[in-house]
């Protein structure tokens, strides 16, 4: 039972850099990151129809610096709009893992919050942040564009004052997320993205990164190493 509202995602490893110049530099970067976000709205459900009005002339998201982007590689925010069926959740997780951090997830519509209208359905995932670390939820059975923009502004303010690092939680508590995913998709669940390798590469591992779920993952998946360019005569 994860507690909503005050989402316990404050990453432990957050430490402010001491000398003032570095801190000013970090503030500046966080300000720029908050002011320029590339949005990948994954139209999983009915909530997606609210985003075009948010982008076009009446509500104009671009003044906030938010641009729609097509591929997860270029995107910063993943907007999961509407109910997430189990089949789609697989693709959402893959897209999330393909995104480059710092990345943020916004769950739009109450179906991502707590099951919403489809709470009875056998096929939909009820609580999104069991599978992905979610930054901001926007409840409403299709929230109006104003609500969406308010959610985005909330995210921008979070980033600005340094609280927008839910993505680290995915690496630090990867075992918890993997467990939930395996619970839903079965034990041989794997994605081509090597999350553990990334955690090692950017040393984002926390205590709970490894657990019994990651061990079951190791049995099935032999991680895909990049083909290193070598000269073997």
């Amino acid at each position, binding site marked *: 039972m994860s507690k909503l509202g005050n989402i316990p995602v404050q990453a432990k490893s957050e430490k402010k850099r001491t000398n003032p110049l570095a801190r000013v530099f970090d503030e*500046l*970067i966080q300000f*720029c*990151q908050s*002011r*320029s*976000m590339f949005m990948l709205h994954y139209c999983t459900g009915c909530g997606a129809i609210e985003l075009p009005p948010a982008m*076009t*002339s009446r509500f*104009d998201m*671009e*003044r906030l*610096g938010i*641009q729609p*982007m*097509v*591929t997860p*590689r*270029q995107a*910063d925010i993943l907007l999961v709009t509407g109910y997430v069926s189990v089949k789609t959740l697989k693709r959402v997780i893959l897209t999330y893992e393909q995104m*480059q*951090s*710092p990345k943020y997830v916004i769950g739009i519509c109450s179906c991502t919050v707590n099951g919403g209208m489809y709470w009875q359905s056998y096929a939909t995932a009820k609580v999104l942040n069991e599978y992905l670390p979610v930054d901001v939820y926007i409840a409403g059975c299709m929230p109006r564009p104003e609500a969406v923009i308010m959610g985005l502004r909330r995210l921008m303010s979070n980033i600005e004052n340094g609280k927008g690092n839910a993505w680290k939680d995915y690496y630090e508590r990867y075992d918890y997320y993997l467990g939930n995913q395996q619970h839903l998709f079965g034990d041989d669940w794997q994605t081509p993205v090597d999350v553990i390798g*990334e955690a090692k*590469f*950017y040393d984002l591992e926390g205590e709970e990164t490894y657990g019994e779920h990651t061990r079951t993952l190791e049995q099935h998946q032999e991680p895909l190493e*990049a*083909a290193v*360019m070598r000269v073997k005569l």
Partner: protein
Amino acid sequence: MASFNSISELLAQLLFMPMLAFLLGLVMVLMYRKIAARLQRRIGPPFFQPVYDIVKLYSKDTQISHGLIHDIGIVVAVGGYVAAVILLPVPGMDGIADKGGIITLSYFLMIPSLGMALGVGQCANPNGSIGISRALTAMLAYDIPFIIVVFGVALHYQSTSLVGMIDYQQAHQWGIFEMPLLAAAGLFALQGMMGKHPFEIYVAPAEIATGPMVEMSGKFMGGLFVMQSFQFYVASVLYTSLFLGGGANWFEFLLKIFFVVEIPMSISFLFPRYRTEDMVRIMWKWPVMLALIGIAFVI
């Protein structure tokens, strides 16, 4: 136009010209997005938005690369434009414009696209490959009218070095009055060269997931944004030095290049995206005809 006479001045120019190009490029990108917004009755991004985007992209914590050639591709893309910019004379600074003429410059503009093509090739993503094949076809399309225009201009000014051309235009009238048809064809080619909306098939977001940029994350995407700003700058400065007589002083120069850039930008939002073969057909029909008639007058 004092070309560099001492090494120290050259070094200063080497540093200053790309910096200037980058800044002006950013402002042009902003202008592009502002015009887009205004046409759609939107407010449009804040002033420093391009800066925010680039800083955010460069400050990404994680980014993926598909191999050394992928990295080199981006390096060549940005580096190619930095080198091309140095060949472009700017009031007060000529860089090495007289060492290589306009033919060298038109070849320098091909290096970044080929470099990026190699980089995207290694991403092993068919969206990227399709995008590149369309980008090269587009290059084939707009380069022919552009080269005809270059030929006409070089023939008219009897020299291929840009510095010589600017001096000629300062002395006589501007190029646009003496060669109106060539100027029009040049504008057409400029539209293609910008790689913006009517001729933007290779970055079609819906069909091929932004084509070459499909696997570009973090600093790779940042590199492409920098390249885009250089693209705007080079296209506009080249057009001004060919037809609008380059800049005698800074204010006049800035006025001209922003005016030159503004025309294709505003045109670009009135047209849907052309298919590849339609683009080639159009580019080989109208601008080429205009340019050839223009040349007939010049000879």
